[in-house]
């Protein structure tokens, strides 16, 4: 489902991207340390899950490339829904599907099963926005993609903690 991009070819599509500052760790509040107070799942928590995903072609995180931003995360804990919009660095980025897939897999592995998740491209920021969104929304295609060893390998690399 992913087009063959500049993977491993040495030529980057966007060789000199803008780099944004990493946000620090979320400060722990007194409420979070109190056993009794429930903490609902909020936008920052979702953002913390996805901001450290590695970009498939740069040694940078999605946060540093501004591909994901906290303002583009919508979440409702009581309704069990989460929506993440991501912004490819350039409108023709062939990595868009792969990035979307990484975000989706990260959320699948990290969020309770009750959540319905929607990962899509920020409207108007990619040439094949519609096609990519459709692929990401199709459960069977996502499942099939993860059966593909090569794709799973790339996704796992994106999700591995950077040393």
């Amino acid at each position, binding site marked *: 489902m992913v087009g063959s991009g500049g993977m491993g070819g040495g030529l980057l599509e966007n060789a000199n991207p*803008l*780099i*944004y*500052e990493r946000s620090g760790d979320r400060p*722990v509040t007194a409420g*979070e*340390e109190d*056993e009794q107070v*429930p*903490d609902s*799942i909020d936008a920052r*928590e979702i953002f*913390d*899950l996805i901001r450290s995903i590695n970009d498939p072609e*740069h*040694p*940078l*995180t999605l946060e*540093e490339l501004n591909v994901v931003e906290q303002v583009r995360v919508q979440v409702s804990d009581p309704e069990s829904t989460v929506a993440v919009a991501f912004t490819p660095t350039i409108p023709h980025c062939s990595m868009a599907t792969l990035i979307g897939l990484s975000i989706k897999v*990260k959320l699948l*592995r*990290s*969020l*309770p*099963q*009750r959540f319905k998740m929607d990962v899509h491209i920020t409207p108007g920021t990619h040439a094949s926005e519609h096609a990519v969104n459709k692929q990401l929304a199709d459960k069977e295609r996502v499942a099939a993609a993860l059966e593909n*060893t*090569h794709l*799973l*390998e*790339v*996704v*796992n*690399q994106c*999700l*591995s903690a*950077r040393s």
Partner: protein
Amino acid sequence: MAAAAALEAVAPLGALWGLVQDFVMGQQEGPADQVAADVKSGSYTVLQVVEALGSSLENPEPRTRARGIQLLSQVLLQCHSLLLEKEVVHLILFYENRLKDHHLVIPSVLQGLRALSLCVALPPGLAVSVLKAIFQEVHVQSLPQVDRHTVYSIITNFMRTREEGPFVEELFEVTSCYFPIDFTPPPNDPHGIQREDLILSLRAVLASTPRFAEFLLPLLIEKVDSEILSAKLDSLQTLNACCAVYGQKELKDFLPSLWASIRREVFQTASERVEAEGLAALNSLTACLSRSVLRADAEDLLDSFLSNILQDCRHHLCEPDMKLVWPSAKLLQAAAGASARACDHITSNVLPLLLEQFHKHSQSNQRRTILEMILGFLKLQQKWSYEDKDERPLSGFKDQLCSLMFMALADPNTQLQLVGIRTLTVLGAQPDLLSSGDLELAVGHLYRLSFLEEDSQSCRVAALEASGSLATLYPVAFSSHLVPKLAEDLCSEESDLARGDGPTRCSQHPRCLQALSAVSTHPSIVKETLPLLLQHLCQMNRGSMTPGTSEVIAVCQSLQQVAEKCQRDPESCWYFHQTAVPCLLALAVQASTPEKEHSVLKKVLLEDEVLATMASVIATATTHLSPDLAAQSVAHVVPLFLDGNISFLPENSFSGRFQPFQDGSSGQRRLVALLMAFVCSLPRNVEIPQLNRLMRELLELSCCQSCPFSSTAAAKCFAGLLNKHPAGQELDEFLQLAVDKVEAGLSSGPCRSQAFTLLLWVTKALVLRYHPLSSCLTERLMGLLSDPELGPAAADGFSLLMSDCTDVLTRAGHAEVRIMFRQRFFTDNVPALVRGFHAAPQDVKPNYLKGLSHVLNRLPKPVLLPELPTLLSLLLEALSCPDSVVQLSTLSCLQPLLLEAPQVMSLHVDTLVTKFLTLSASPSMAVRIAALQCMHALTRLPTPVLLPYKPQVIRALAKPLDDKKRLVRKEAVSARGEWFLLGSPGS
């Protein structure tokens, strides 16, 4: 005579032959050290050792020859400083010749050469000859790591002392081919060489001489440009090291490329470490250029280098979208931090630009970024001191900087205010920069910010801190513009309280107190604030309005902070002690003496919490007293408690008698907590009057059936004095009294729990000072673990024994606390605890586990780690214990074990997975977190062991993903993520 001397000479030589035989043929290691020691003591010479070795050095079997040379080399390593020049020459010739020998012999030969390379008596030319021989006879590159390490040591040793002239390039080639080090020690490496050792040794060689520069710098540039993170880091660090020995001459040709590489790394890096190393290297480069002495006609490279940096960075500072501003500012600041000249050059170029940018941007966020950058440059100024006022580069910008700072302080945006406060602190620290008008305005802002609402907490704290640090520099400004306002606020508070329209103004009360204590950083200010605070406390007593516990505590906390600030200055310290301690004691004594009508404050003053806070003020005001002054004070305080002598208290017309130790009221007995705070904080050499009587009274009170607060205070006070008492007959008597008291109390009756508390505190006092009786008392305590009534308390007692107290038995209070007492307690008592656990009946086993948990919990992990494997079976059993303290401690012991000893742990994988998953559903949040961290650590076990559990674990970990606590979810996410990656491609 002659015969006797000859015999004496023969005797040690005979011994030498024996030792040599034992080492070479007998394969024993000990004799080498013996021979070296004998050579050092002069029993025989190195030459005689060589003679004794004679036949083994010519033995046809290479292993025997190797052993012989090894002995000689080991002796030389210890005795090289005794060698004469002539001996060195012979030995070097011998060793050079041996380099041609069998490869088994080479390691020992190199060791010998290393010993000789350390000789001071090495004649000129021989270093060259040794290196020639090594490079000619041995293929260094293919030696094992240990031996390569030896060769590098030889080279380093030579370089430290002499010229390497003819070999620069060869030496460089043979050493640089290993750069950057890419070596991982094999498991169970007997030599224990770590990657870091090799990196540092190689770096020491490469950066040892400027002569390598022309070869090394291109190599470093190439490696910084590579894709490998470790190579980048190593290269930048090596460059940093080189700058210590290089000058302009070496760097000149490479500056543009070095700058380009560093700039690229800082602009684009994904790694904070690379960024930090890049900045450090730039700082060293600039420092190196600043340091070099120039010939009159030479071009100053510093100027052109800095101009280059400015040219590449300044436009980023001005771009409207402000991308890359931070990396640019960091680069400029790294360079500016190198020398006063660099700082001048860069600041004078950048400051006008940034000032202009501040006004161009109108959004608070952008202004904050710009002001933060300006602040970075201002801070650098503090590194250099300027003799002449006019030379100070900031004087020209002062007005503009002040106007920016005041705009920031007045801005509604909290973040911008915060940077404004930091700017104020930095500008204030510049001598003679701010005018008195600026200061008055600044103090006004600080006053306003100190009373900000709850949601600007961080800003308020910053304003208080800034007030404190500026008040030390400008006491007059604060005395005249801030303290009077605060005094007025406090006064109106009192009248508000009296009138009863509390709540609105009451929220200001704690802020005003905090501001008063924050600004008490100068002795002259303390003389104004302390009377204000004490007066306020007395006033609360008189007012008709009910003061709450929290208000009294707030005043005491404020006093506590003032006391802490006074500790630095002996004069303030005595002033505070002399003023506050009698006043606090008078208030407390008055509150405790019987009177017809008890005012509310009196009851409040005797509450546990209030007394504890007052005690803390008294302790803080006492620890830093000089022994003379402390003796003056103790001569008043002890008679107050023993004899009811109230003459030194400021208001001493109380209606009743003060007799806490006789038949005084229970309220009076509670004041022993204040006595404890005072006497247990005195320096050790201050003599306490009527000590014997005091100790007996304390002992009596500690086991008396009054309220637990007084008896515990008495026990603690007794223990505190015991800990400091010098060893001797008197101490033994006190101890005997205490033991008798404890045994009598424990045997039966209503005072068992008081006697137990006394035992606990006395044990602690002795454990801390390694007193021999401590082991007896600890055993007694362990015996109580199976006591049906006191067992759980005894288990928790181990926590007290191992932890640091805050009020008595503290280092700050001059108690005798040996630094290794925890380790010692662990070694002495854990075996007995483990035996006790195995022998104990089922119902008291948890007490032993809990006691053990407390001991393990408090021990530093590195100390604990080697001991844990022997405790493993116990720890696994403890995972099933229902007590959450035990669970938590067990999990925190197992977590590092999983990381450090995965092989051992994988034998128990089944138990571990099951128990961890069970505990991840514990009602205690801390246990859930620790259990999930252990689930994460489990992934360090060998993958094949884990794979059978993967589906089960991933399913089970879905549950804590929906935990109600965010901190638990976070651990669940990272544990589950790692389990997904196990055995999956790409991980």
